[in-house]
Each structure stands twice: as C-alpha cells, then as structure tokens.
C-alpha cells in the first residue's frame, strides 16, 4: 500500500501534497495596497460626522483652501446617532439632535452657554496661533464648521454666532464635494 496519494485520489506517485500560497499572497498584497492608497484612517476629530453632500458642489476642495494655511480652527457638531441609514422615526429624531460640539477635538457640551464657550475657545486658538507666529494676518484665520448633515439648524446656529462674535471674518462650511 502506498504511503500517500495524489490529491485526485487514485494511485498516483507518492509525494507531498501542498497548497499553492503564491496567488493568495498576490491577491492579499493587492488588497492591502488598494486599502492603503484609497482609504483614510478614522480620526477622533471627524469620526462621527456625516457631512452634507450637495448635488452640484459650488465650493473649493478642502486641500486647496488649507494649502499653506495653518491659521484655522475646526468646530464639529456631532449627532446623537451614529447610524447612517435608519428608517425608524425614533432613530431619525435621535439623529437630528446634537450630542456635543468639538473644537479641534476638544468637546464642548450642548448648553445655552455653548456659543459663549466656543467664542472663547476660538479667541484662545487665534491668540495661540498668533503668538506661535503661525498667523501672518489675523484676517486669514478662519473657522471651519463640520456639522453632521442630520442635526437641526438650531445646533449649528450657535457656532455661526460664536464665530461672528469672535470677529472671525472667514467661515467655511465643510461638505462632500464628490459628484
């Protein structure tokens, strides 16, 4: 009796049966390269913000606006829901509520005084940038608002008011520009 048999059975010549890993490795490498090139790592700053997507975007790319620019602050308005698609009315209502603000990743709770707190933080940020020599002209400083598309306007309005009260001249609204 033969000690081993071919993978096809029968009475083939004795030999080691091994799996050919090379195509598997090739495919896996290709997948890894694809993901490395076409993805961005989720960061705490914008992990839970689903940005609005206008039908024909009329602005400019974030990369172009930020090019050579360090004088800005990012204010996020986060929704209470992290689900993207849900037909449940309770979940839709939950998604329309804001959970908190974040200014450069630092949380600011939703409250009647939120606009005042945001205003102070914007001023602090601008001052620190100016002291660090990163802000050549104060009017170059801008506020970028990254609000979840599902939240109600009443949660975003304090951000606009805070920026205006802090005498910020430029206010940019972030949206998805893919067409």
């Amino acid at each position: 009796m033969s000690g081993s048999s071919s993978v096809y059975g029968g009475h083939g010549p004795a030999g080691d049966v091994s799996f050919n890993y090379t195509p598997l490795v090739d495919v896996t490498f290709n997948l890894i390269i694809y993901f490395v090139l076409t993805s961005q790592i989720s960061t705490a700053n914008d992990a839970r913000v689903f940005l609005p997507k206008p039908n024909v975007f009329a602005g400019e790319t974030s990369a172009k606006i930020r090019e050579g620019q360090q004088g800005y602050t990012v204010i996020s308005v986060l929704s209470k829901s992290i689900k993207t698609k849900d037909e449940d009315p309770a979940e839709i209502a939950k998604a329309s509520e804001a959970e908190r603000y974040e200014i450069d990743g630092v949380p600011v709770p939703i409250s009647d005084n939120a606009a005042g707190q945001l205003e102070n933080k914007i001023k602090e940020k601008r001052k620190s940038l100016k002291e660090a020599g990163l802000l050549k002209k104060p009017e170059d400083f801008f506020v970028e608002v990254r609000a979840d598309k599902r939240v109600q306007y009443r949660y975003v309005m304090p951000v606009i008011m805070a920026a205006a009260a802090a005498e910020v001249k430029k206010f940019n609204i972030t949206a998805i520009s893919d067409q």
Partner: protein
Amino acid sequence: MSNGNEETLLPPFKKKHRSKVKISPPLLPLIDVMFTLLMFFLVAARAITTEGMLPSNLPEVGKSNMTAVAVRISLVSDAAGRPAVYQVEGESRREFQTAEQLHVYLEEIKKRLGPDTPIKISPQSLVRWEDVVNAFNQAQRVQFKKVGFERFNG
C-alpha cells in the same frame, strides 16, 4: 615504491548527486500578518471622500450690510429629520421641493436683479443642516455675492 614523501592519492572528484530539495520560505506567518493588516484596513479605514468647503465671510455682529434683503429663502420642515421645503420670498412668493428647483429660480433672479442682490437664508430651528447647506450651496453656485444666514425663525 615509497620515498617517504608519499602523496595520498585521492579518489577522482565526483559530482555528488545531491537530492533535489525544494527550499521555500515559510509563507504561513507572512499570510497571517497580511490578513491581520487587511482586517485592520477594512475595519479602521473608510472609503475616501473628497471634502470641500463653501467659503463665506462673516459680518460683525449687528453690523450686517444686508439691510435691504431682496430675496429671503425660508426653509420649512414639518418634523425633525424631514426634508425641508424652500420658500422664496422676493418679487413673488414661490415654493420649491428640491435644491435643483431652487437653483433654477435663483438663476432667474440673478439675471433680473444681478449678482449683488442680497440673499438671506432663513431656516426654521428644526431644519436639517444638510438642507441649509444645500440652499447656501445653490446661492454660491449662482454666484451671488451677498449671502447670509438668519437666526432660526421658530
């Protein structure tokens, strides 16, 4: 005959008949690592989306130069999370269901009144931010020069 300086005669060199052994690196640890990397990217990454910004200028509080508002775009929604309706008040009162319809009407207004016509966006408090951005985007798309936001109107 031996002369004390004997040379040891070696047998003629023969090619050793080596057995053909297949040498291959151990691929299994490599595959393990690669699958782990793959899983990491699948879980921690998301499809890239090109982000853009809609730039605007803010007036000083209480010093807006939009006193004579020619066109007001009111955004009205009947419930939280529901799409808003765009109501345009200007020369006449018109209502639009979609941002694209609003865009067409704003184009007409621009032709008649010019790009310096002040446009004020006036959303209800419970209107979705997406609808507000859409209205602002349409005004930017038509290239109106003075576009402002109003505090929520109820």
